[in-house]
């Protein structure tokens, strides 16, 4: 990998970490949901700081240009992150459904209790 590219990638990943830390500090991101983002950044950083590793991996996989291995890695992480987001959305959907249903049951109970109370007084 050209050293210019490496230099820019390192800067980019540093910014990436600074962004994540900034959001974490502002509580705009839950650590639980951005562990994958952090792991992805660390793996990228390791590959860029130790290009031998990346070259070895590329040879093993039969990829000619190591930077393509980097892209493939990135894509893999993106897929993982997207899947985790879909899973989180699904869980949220289930939870809000449950909340709405219980709310409806409670509303009916309150309504009946109020009617009972009015009937007595």
């Amino acid at each position, binding site marked *: 990998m050209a050293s210019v590219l490496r230099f820019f990638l390192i800067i980019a990943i540093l910014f990436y970490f600074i962004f994540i830390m900034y959001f974490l500090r502002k509580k705009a991101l839950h650590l639980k949901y951005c562990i994958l983002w952090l792991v992805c950044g660390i793996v990228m950083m390791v590959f860029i700081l130790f290009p031998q590793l990346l070259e070895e991996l590329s040879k093993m996989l039969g990829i000619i240009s190591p930077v393509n291995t980097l892209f493939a890695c990135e894509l893999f992480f993106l897929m993982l992150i997207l899947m985790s987001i879909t899973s989180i959305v699904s869980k949220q959907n289930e939870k809000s459904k449950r909340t*709405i*249903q219980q*709310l*409806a*049951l409670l509303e009916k109970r309150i309504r009946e209790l109020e009617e009972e109370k009015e009937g007595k007084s």
Partner: protein
Amino acid sequence: MKVLIIIPAYNEANNIVAVIEKLKKDFSNADYVIINDCSKDDTLRICREHQYQYLDLPLNLGIGGGVQTGYLYAYAYDYDIAIQIDGDGQHDTAFIQNVVDPIEQGQADVVIGSRFIDKEGFQSSFMRRFGIHFLSRLIRICCGANVKDVTSGYRAVGKRMIACYAQDYAQDYPEPEAIVMAALHGARIMEVPVVMKERLGGESSISGFRSIYYMLKVSLAIVIYRLTHKREG
């Protein structure tokens, strides 16, 4: 036996009074509850004015989430049998006794009201019948349940399946999946003839491209449900 009739209603201001009044005449020895799925019309106001029994969902959940609320209610108040009928008047409540009987007599756990047994009343369009037939075959292959009218929302459910449905019920287009679920839980499923009418007002929620999506989604749901769940009981 404590019997609850679940009536999901979304924008049924024009039909709900007729449905409930007929229901009270046809089948008076049961409780009923309307599930108002956040209707945009006057359904809620009408329920309130007529002092009907209703549950009011604060946000729209769709038919699956709505009906499931009914099952949750049945479960919470310890009903023995839950019956679901549509709020649009397509399901003739004169047949409720026929749907309940097999459960009261202990012959079945889930009873589906079917328009394809006696072939009376509204039979739906050719394309729809074809789709329903396909899903019926698919369900028979996947779990052995022999049901013709798999999309019918006219059904009665015994105590054990009330608990199951209260816990887990598909959110959109739930009817065929609910049959697979019942079969895999070892429920005895029975089909009895009922008469359905053509809808009076409003449009079907499933038409055009939606119907292709419907078939794909439901078929996939059935197959995946079968692949990911073991037979119990």
